[in-house]
């Protein structure tokens, strides 16, 4: 087993009076792909968003327990959320390019980090786009609006944009749910490539996708972590009856 990158201890989250996550404890190893599965509303996306504190933006959210990233509790008062998010990047369900050129989209992160040198930016943009397998498709139109790209291209550009900040962990919230099968295949291929260097946590609705791309799978149900283990095991011989029912499609 590899080093543990993210570890949560009794993480509980409330939206106002409603408990959305109940005492989640999990250990996510580095440089592997961990998939969160479960029916919609089970808390898997909410949990993902606690890992880089995106839930901070929602009013009335209360969190107890700990989230340790490299053994540091990210909910510690001393933690700088802005820097945390630079190291724990996120790719969203709906591709969300800024209304700027492709170049400016990818250069956004480096720019806010104070990099203004044109050649340096060009270098970062190129390597990021290459890592996201989209360089060949866009290298001749970097100054075109990112809105002109197809949905799948937009999503890969958003991944490149995240990579440009050089995170260690990439959280993906159903990154392929709005895409056609070909684009989805490209994203999956990309995830497989990225796990060599990054720790990836992916929320997915699509169980085949989880089975294909992930090394570990966590099954969530009604705000609780039901089962967590090797993907192969979860999909063949799950311990819990609930998991089996979900995987075999009896509910969800």
């Amino acid at each position: 087993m590899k080093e543990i990158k993210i570890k949560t201890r009794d993480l509980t989250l409330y939206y106002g009076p409603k408990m959305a996550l109940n005492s989640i404890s999990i250990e996510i190893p580095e440089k592997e792909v961990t998939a969160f599965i479960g029916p919609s509303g089970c808390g898997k996306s909410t949990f993902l968003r606690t890992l880089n504190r995106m839930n901070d933006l929602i009013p009335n959210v209360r969190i107890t327990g700990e989230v340790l990233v490299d053994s540091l509790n990210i909910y510690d008062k001393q933690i700088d959320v802005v820097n945390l998010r630079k190291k724990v990047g996120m790719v969203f369900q709906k591709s969300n390019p800024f209304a700027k050129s492709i170049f400016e989209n990818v250069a956004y992160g480096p720019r806010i980090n104070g990099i203004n040198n044109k050649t340096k930016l060009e270098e970062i943009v190129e390597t990021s786009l290459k890592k996201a397998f989209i360089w060949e498709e866009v290298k001749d139109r970097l100054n075109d609006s990112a809105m002109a790209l197809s949905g799948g291209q937009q999503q890969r550009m958003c991944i490149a944009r995240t990579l440009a900040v050089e995170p260690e962990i990439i959280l993906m919230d159903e990154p392929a749910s709005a895409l056609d099968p070909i684009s989805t295949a490209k994203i999956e291929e990309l995830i497989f490539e990225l796990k060599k260097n990054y720790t990836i946590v992916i929320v997915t609705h699509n169980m085949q996708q989880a089975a294909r791309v992930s090394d570990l799978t966590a099954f969530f149900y009604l705000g609780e972590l039901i089962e967590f283990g090797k993907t192969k095991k979860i999909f063949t011989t799950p311990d819990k009856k609930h998991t089996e029912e979900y995987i075999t499609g009896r509910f969800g």
Partner: protein
Amino acid sequence: MSRKKDITGGFFIGVTAFSAFVIIAVIIILLVVIIKGGKDTFSWEFLTAFPEDGMMKGGIFPAIYGTALLVLIMSIAAVPFGTITAIYLTEYAHEKSVLAQTIRFAVRTLATVPSIIFGLFGLGFFIKFVGGGVDDFFLGGELKWGQPNILWASLTMALLTLPVVIVSVEEAIRTVPRELREASLALGATKWETIKRIVIPGSRSGIMTGTILAVSRGAGEVAPILFTGAAYYLATLPTSMSDQFMNLGYHIYILATQSANVDQTLPIQFATTMVLLLLTFTLNLAAVIIRSRLRRKAK
């Protein structure tokens, strides 16, 4: 029975349609009458010449210039302040907080305060308090800023148009999708960086609409400048912030009610009214079009 219902219903719908028709008809009549009365006098020269013979002849250039200067200074004051207030209300304030609600109430109140009250405030605050204070402290009592001028008139007008800007910009900021803010924050941007790089550029059209509406309002209002800076007649254009200025709306008012021979200047009055009406009309039309596009985009 049902036939009777139909007649009553038809009559009722007819009455409502007629009411709407009356309003539209009045708008058209007003436009047509003013344009008909003014078009013969209207010319390039009319726009660019000074008044002559005690404003009995000649053009309205100083009034156009004064109005333009007024709305320019006004916009410089109102647009940034209005935009920042809108940013506070959408990005920083908690929707339910007492402070946010109080500010909203203040903005709405400000929007309904009669324009003449702004004039009084301009006189009491800008001219007497601020201007008079500056004169006493820095100029040893010499009367320079403690009297009506274009700066005080513009600032008074800025207060009047502040709510116009706030409302337009706020509406536009709300059309910037939450996903874009999240994307920016997830890349490690701070709140202010996100506002500066994503939210403000994303609401440019709203800031534009707000500015246009404010300019249109500022160009047309007369009551606030009656005693804060507008002048009947000036032989020269204002060159300093402490100068008085001529104004299109005020020019119409003066010519129509105070001039020695109202009938003789009637063509000039109509032409001046036409200029002001077309100016505000065009600006408002532009704002309406931009805004309806924005609303469609929001959907």
